[in-house]
């Protein structure tokens, strides 16, 4: 094989030069499909990271019926405090809540009441701190079962919606990546097929003088691999740069959003994109070679 490596390398370069536009199209489709794949992976990683950070929020908000008197409210509070797994319960009275809102709106308590029509529409609310994040859901349910509590809110609400969204995104992303992946494989296979066709005389003679099938196939296989690899490398670079840019943007302007910056994930995705490109290239070559080089 050592004697042949020079020949194989030359032929690979030659055949890529023969159809530069088709080669470009193959590379670009591989690149686009893998770019989408790369960004989807990072988006999903961030979404699940976000979901996790919300899931681990240890707070439950419980809203009390407005008809309850302050004594009844205190009674409910002590009931919650007695539940297992509860760390502390803080009461945010409707007056405090109104004051908080007033502060953010830039007015005082007296005129905000008049602003909202003379009566305070807000309910009293308990902020329940939980010792173990895994108990949040169960505790929220039992708190909600108490008389006088008409609504509980906790991280899970948001997390559920986020998960529903990421589920959708996963399918759409999968579909788009698959569509572009198929297009890339088809383009590469057309590319290789055209090169097989333009070299059919050479191949005929190679077979005649006893070149082994693998020797004849190698340049085409390598060509497909190279096209895929270039596409994958470009995708990895673009995804890397783009993600870095987005990370910087989010960290400076949306500081509350946690962003995944995982070196290992970064490397895994890059290697994955390269391998993905090579796989598409190999697949494309194999499809076209099977038909042409049977005997």
């Amino acid at each position, binding site marked *: 094989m050592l004697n042949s490596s020079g020949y194989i390398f030359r032929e690979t370069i030659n055949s890529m030069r023969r159809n530069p536009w088709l080669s470009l199209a193959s590379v670009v489709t591989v690149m686009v499909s893998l770019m989408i794949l790369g960004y989807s992976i990072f988006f999903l990683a961030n979404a699940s990271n976000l979901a996790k950070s919300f899931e681990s929020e240890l707070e439950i908000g419980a809203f009390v019926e407005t008809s309850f008197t302050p004594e009844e409210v205190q009674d409910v509070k002590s009931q919650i405090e007695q539940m297992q797994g509860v760390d502390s319960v803080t009461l945010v009275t409707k007056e405090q809540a109104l004051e908080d809102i007033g502060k953010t709106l830039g007015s005082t308590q007296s005129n905000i009441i008049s602003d909202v029509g003379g009566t305070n529409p807000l309910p009293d609310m308990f902020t329940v701190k939980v010792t173990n994040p895994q108990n949040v859901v169960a505790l929220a349910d039992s708190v909600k079962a108490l008389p006088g509590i008409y609504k509980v809110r906790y991280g899970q609400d948001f997390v559920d919606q986020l998960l529903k969204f990421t589920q959708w995104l996963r399918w759409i992303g999968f579909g788009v990546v698959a569509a572009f992946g198929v297009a890339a494989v088809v383009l590469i296979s057309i590319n290789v097929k055209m090169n097989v066709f333009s070299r059919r005389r050479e191949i005929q003679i190679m077979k*005649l003088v006893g*070149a*082994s099938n693998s020797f004849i196939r190698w340049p085409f296989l390598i060509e497909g691999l190279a096209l895929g690899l270039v596409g994958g490398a470009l995708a990895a670079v673009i995804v890397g740069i783009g993600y870095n840019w987005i990370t910087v943007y989010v960290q400076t302007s949306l500081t509350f959003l946690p962003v995944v910056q995982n070196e290992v994930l970064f490397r895994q995705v890059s290697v994955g994109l390269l391998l993905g490109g090579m796989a598409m290239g190999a697949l494309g070559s194999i499809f076209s070679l099977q038909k042409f080089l049977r005997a």
Partner: protein
Amino acid sequence: MIQLTNVSKIYPNGARALVDVNLKIGKGNFVFLVGPSGAGKSTLIKLLYREEIPTRGQVQINSKNLVRMREREVPYLRRSIGVIFQDFKLLPNKTVFENVAFALEVIGVAKREVRNRTLLTLELVGLKAKERAYPHELSGGEQQRVCVARAIINNPALLVADEPTGNLDPDTAWDIMDLLYDINKRGTTIVMATHARAIVNKMQKRVIAIENGRVARDEEKGGYGYDA
């Protein structure tokens, strides 16, 4: 060396190219295949280098069974068989040297050896002076010599030729026949399909006539045998 046993070949379109052919060709033989166009000569030639597989019957070369042979063994069979065509089948964008060297390059022979053997073979066919020329710069006879050089560079035990002189004028044809005669003298078995009456009659070699896919005649030191 070559043995065909009850060989029939029916192409997918239904054409019966060969019907129940039995043949034995010994080592070092020089055999002419004659007969009308479409009689099955080319099919018989193709069976010998396993371009085609018979529909029925067995083909053996050097006691290797070409029918039962696995695909991946075929390249190694081909390395022991040289093939010459009427249309030469040279690569137009390669020089004479490169065309001949190609046959060694693609089977993984080391570069230095490729060079030595190519020059030696070009000398043998009388084309050493033209090693840098491209096929379109050569005459038909010279092109056929390149084809012969490529076919024999691997020292094949068998050389098959499908109308090698079909595109050449009579004088040039005789040059090629002289070359094939020399190659045969060195021990290579030659099977040649041809319409060249004068050559067959003059050379006085074994003649096998194929008609309608059957062996119609098989004689040592035969003549062409068909009226013009």
